[in-house]
């Protein structure tokens, strides 16, 4: 008898005990469900919270007992209080607004350029041969290495910040759009020839929808990149923004505010990622392994 069989029997027994039903030849779905319930009573969504909550509780206890230094690891309750104070004073809204403008502006600029260029090089052999190698080469340059150049050229003002973010969000969208457009199904292309699609319809009704899964993947990666570069850009010198808030708090050794800043990045990052995922689910309802 395999381990699986034993586990199954155990579950069936638990089910029998719970429901009090007489044993039948075949385990019914009810019994199986009862067995599962016996093993875990937590609702599904709670699972992900178990570990962080346990860590927080431990952390808070360690702080209260004086086991960790307050300046290195302030208690969660202190971070929460700092969070609330920054909320109440309106500082946080101000910083967030500034950061969102920079990240959003850079993302839109870079993403739109990436989309256009990706479609361009994905469609034309000539464009691909002349442009793509250069872009692929630039892609391998670590973006942080060009920051000094940007500062020399454009100073530390908004322009170089937005440009840095735009550059970072350009590559994923470009790369994945190029890939998606390039890999549009040749068989469906034949169908559009038979049905006499115009150039415009070919673009909007075959190439773009076919590339959409790839494009959205690129967008998701870009959103991540733009938050990363936002933090970098705001730390290289700014007078507002979440990155600036962190940098400023570091100078005054306000570790709790540094934590608040990190938390904000995590929240906003997760939120924007979820938004793109939602868009993916909405737009790609048709896809899953359809071959036709």
């Amino acid at each position, binding site marked *: 008898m395999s381990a699986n069989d034993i586990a199954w029997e155990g579950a069936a027994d638990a089910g029998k005990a719970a429901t009090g039903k007489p044993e039948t030849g075949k385990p019914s779905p009810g019994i199986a469900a009862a067995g599962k319930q016996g093993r875990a009573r937590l609702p599904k969504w709670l699972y992900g919270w178990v570990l962080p909550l346990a860590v927080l509780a431990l952390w808070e206890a360690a702080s209260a007992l004086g086991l960790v230094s307050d300046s290195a690891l302030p208690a969660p309750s202190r971070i929460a209080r700092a969070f609330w104070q920054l909320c109440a004073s309106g500082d946080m809204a101000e910083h967030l607004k500034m950061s969102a403008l920079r990240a959003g502006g850079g993302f839109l600029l870079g993403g739109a350029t990436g989309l256009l260029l990706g479609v361009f090089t994905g469609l034309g052999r000539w464009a691909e041969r002349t442009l793509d190698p250069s872009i692929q080469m630039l892609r391998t340059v670590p973006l942080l290495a060009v920051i000094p150049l940007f500062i020399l050229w454009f100073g530390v003002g908004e322009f170089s910040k937005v440009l840095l973010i735009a550059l970072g969000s350009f590559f994923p969208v470009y790369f994945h759009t190029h890939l998606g457009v390039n890999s549009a199904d040749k*068989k469906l292309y*034949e169908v559009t020839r*038979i049905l*006499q699609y115009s150039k415009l319809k070919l673009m909007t009704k075959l190439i773009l929808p076919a590339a*959409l899964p790839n494009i959205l993947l690129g967008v998701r990666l870009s959103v991540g990149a733009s938050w990363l570069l936002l933090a970098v850009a705001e730390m290289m010198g700014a007078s507002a923004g979440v990155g600036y808030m962190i940098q400023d708090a570091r100078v005054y050794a306000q570790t709790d505010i540094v934590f608040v800043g990190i938390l904000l990045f995590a929240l906003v990052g997760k939120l924007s990622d979820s938004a793109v995922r939602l868009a993916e689910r909405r737009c790609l*309802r*048709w896809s*899953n392994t*359809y071959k*036709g």
Partner: protein
Amino acid sequence: MLTIERLNKTFAAPSGPVVALSNIRLQVERGQFITFIGPSGCGKSTLLKIVAGLDTAYEGTVELNGKAITGPSIEKGFIFQEPRLFPWLTVEKNIAANLSLRSADVRRRVDELIELVRLKGFEKAYPKELSGGMAQRVAIARALLRKPEILLLDEPFGALDAFTRSHMQEALLDIWQNSRTTMLFVTHDLDEAVFLGEKVVIMNPRPGHIRNVIGIDLPYPRKRTGASFQELRSRVLGEFEKVESPPQTDVGAGI
């Protein structure tokens, strides 16, 4: 009317040029149902692609109503072996494809066709939710919406199970009798060729050429089990058994 005269087609292969079609001669009257049958490599699909205008690198004359075929056009519909639906469009949008459903005329025709191919209730379904037979019926409706004068079908039911296939064959005959669209139907299924066609064009490979054309003078709907059906079926089969004999160079066919 479709006229094919002295059609030759050569492919460039690494080992040298390969003759895919050699001296094809064929005439198809409007409204006829012609089936093409032959082993793989006999050029039957190539012939269909040339008529569709998807392949224009050939020698000879291929004319539809006296006009040379230089590319795809709206009067030539094409059904591939796979349905080739756009996976991101619903059934009704797949049928409309590049035409707008907001046009009242298109809307009405699409609804009629959905009725005709018996897909009522599936208008808003995505291709992934359809069975192979249903998807192929969407493809047929998509071709018919353009009111083609000639419908080219390249082994359209080859991937379907036997039950769905025979249902689809009857559905196609229905459509043909209602619309009087000229049908050129490529298959490698002997029964299918005899069951559907008014004439069966038998093709042989190396090089691809027309071996014979056999008229099937049986009234529709045909019975596969009937004695005359079986007799014609054996005649067509008999042509294949002569494959080993050297190909005749100038066998053409006037239909």
